[in-house]
């Protein structure tokens, strides 16, 4: 038997031994959700232990108004919009970036913000706008790109920021009291940047436990084990399972670059509403690169699509199959809500891996 199989069996045995009564653990991060489904971890867990998905999918929590603002930008003739691929098919109020591209708008998919620098240099007559969606994992890379554009005197690159911060969202979720969770698997790659300290409120204010967890199936099983051990020992602490990548203090330089370029701002999250200091906007000295200001695009609050339960799914209040649209009107081929679109959305994962479970 392969070494990993033996380890997995050992961990599963320990989980079975430790589960006592009913427990709900939330995996905050969408990448965890996908790994859990792909590896079949749910099918190994005892009935009393429920894993629920949280708000950690940047594409899923981006509200309709912000998608529409990006679409409005693409209708300006001089603008080229750059986006990560996941966002292309997220429906706005009446269109999507993918649909707009089919109409001939200049929209390009990139895999790294560094591509934006190359494209801007190669197309001096165009105004290049990077639609920046992401959490703390991504924001330092965006910030470094902004600084590089400034250093290299690239004047035709702009940023449309839809970036968000994870700890304020967790706080809002727990404060609402509705999610009813016993412990949290905390996002490994957000934590690479921010470290352990920003989660301390989880233990201090809510007496809940959290474990920063990696993304391999064995990491996730070990993370669950660590939560169960805390429970058994009556502890509520923030622990780090993903020690090979996450330092307690995070990546100090990345945080510093991020803080140099961005400042926290109130932001609306799909499902969670407006949360103070949970978004990132460019600081005053970089304002001339802020697409929302330069192109004067106000942000409108818009309703989620009728019938779509993404908002509740993102808070752990509903499971995707509880949504009346799931698998019927809303499928990965023809999605209504973002949780079905994104490769790490909970609905997409349920549809792809979970229907038969």
């Amino acid at each position, binding site marked *: *038997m392969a070494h990993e199989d*033996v*380890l997995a*069996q*050992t*961990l599963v*045995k*320990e989980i079975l*031994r430790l589960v006592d009564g009913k427990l709900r653990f939330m995996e905050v*991060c*969408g*990448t965890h959700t996908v790994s859990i489904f792909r590896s079949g971890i749910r099918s190994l867990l005892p009935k009393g232990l429920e894993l629920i998905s949280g708000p*950690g*999918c*940047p*594409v899923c929590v981006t509200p309709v108004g912000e998608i529409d603002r990006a679409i409005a930008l693409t209708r300006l003739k001089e603008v080229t919009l750059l986006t*990560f691929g*996941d966002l292309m098919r997220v429906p706005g109020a009446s269109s999507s970036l993918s649909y707009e591209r089919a109409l001939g708008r200049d929209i390009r998919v990139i*895999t*790294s*913000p*560094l*591509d934006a620098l190359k494209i801007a240099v190669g197309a001096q007559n165009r105004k290049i706008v990077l639609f920046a*969606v*992401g*959490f703390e*994992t*991504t924001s*330092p*890379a965006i910030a*470094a790109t902004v600084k*590089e554009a400034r250093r290299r005197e690239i004047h035709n690159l702009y940023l449309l920021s839809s970036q968000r911060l994870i700890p304020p969202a967790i706080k809002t979720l727990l404060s609402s009291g509705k999610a009813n969770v016993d412990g949290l698997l905390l*996002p*490994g*790659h*957000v934590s*690479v*940047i921010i470290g352990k300290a920003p989660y301390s409120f989880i233990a201090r204010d809510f007496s809940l436990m959290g474990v920063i967890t990696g*993304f391999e199936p064995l990491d996730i099983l*070990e993370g669950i*084990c*660590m939560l169960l051990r805390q429970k058994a020992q009556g502890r509520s602490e923030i622990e780090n399972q993903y*020690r*090979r*990548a*996450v*330092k307690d203090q995070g*990546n100090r*330089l*990345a945080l510093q*670059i991020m803080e140099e370029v961005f400042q926290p701002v109130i932001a609306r999250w799909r499902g969670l509403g407006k949360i103070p200091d949970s978004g990132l906007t460019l600081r005053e000295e970089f304002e001339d690169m802020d697409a929302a200001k330069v192109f004067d695009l106000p942000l409108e609050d818009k309703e989620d699509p009728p019938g779509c339960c993404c908002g509740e799914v993102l808070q752990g209040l509903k499971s995707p199959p509880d949504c009346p649209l799931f698998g019927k009107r809303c499928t990965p081929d023809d999605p209504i809500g973002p949780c079905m679109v*994104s490769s*790490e959305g909970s609905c997409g994962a349920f549809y792809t891996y979970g229907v038969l479970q």
Partner: protein
Amino acid sequence: MCLGVPGKIVSIEKDLAEIDFGGIKREASLLLCPEATEGDYVLVHVGFAIERLNEGEALGRLRLLKEIEETCLGSAEDGT
């Protein structure tokens, strides 16, 4: 979206590294991880190395597992 892929640094030129992801080689920026050197394993996200991977911890991650095995040893029907 928060995918991070581990790879090994093959060579470095200024702040760009050539990284080997199990046979596929790609460039990544070291702006967020300037202390990384040739031979290091780094975690790469959207074209940026965001942290060096700690080999000691990677190998030592079995600590908890060993503990479990020890605590279970007496009772387990040891299917291994």
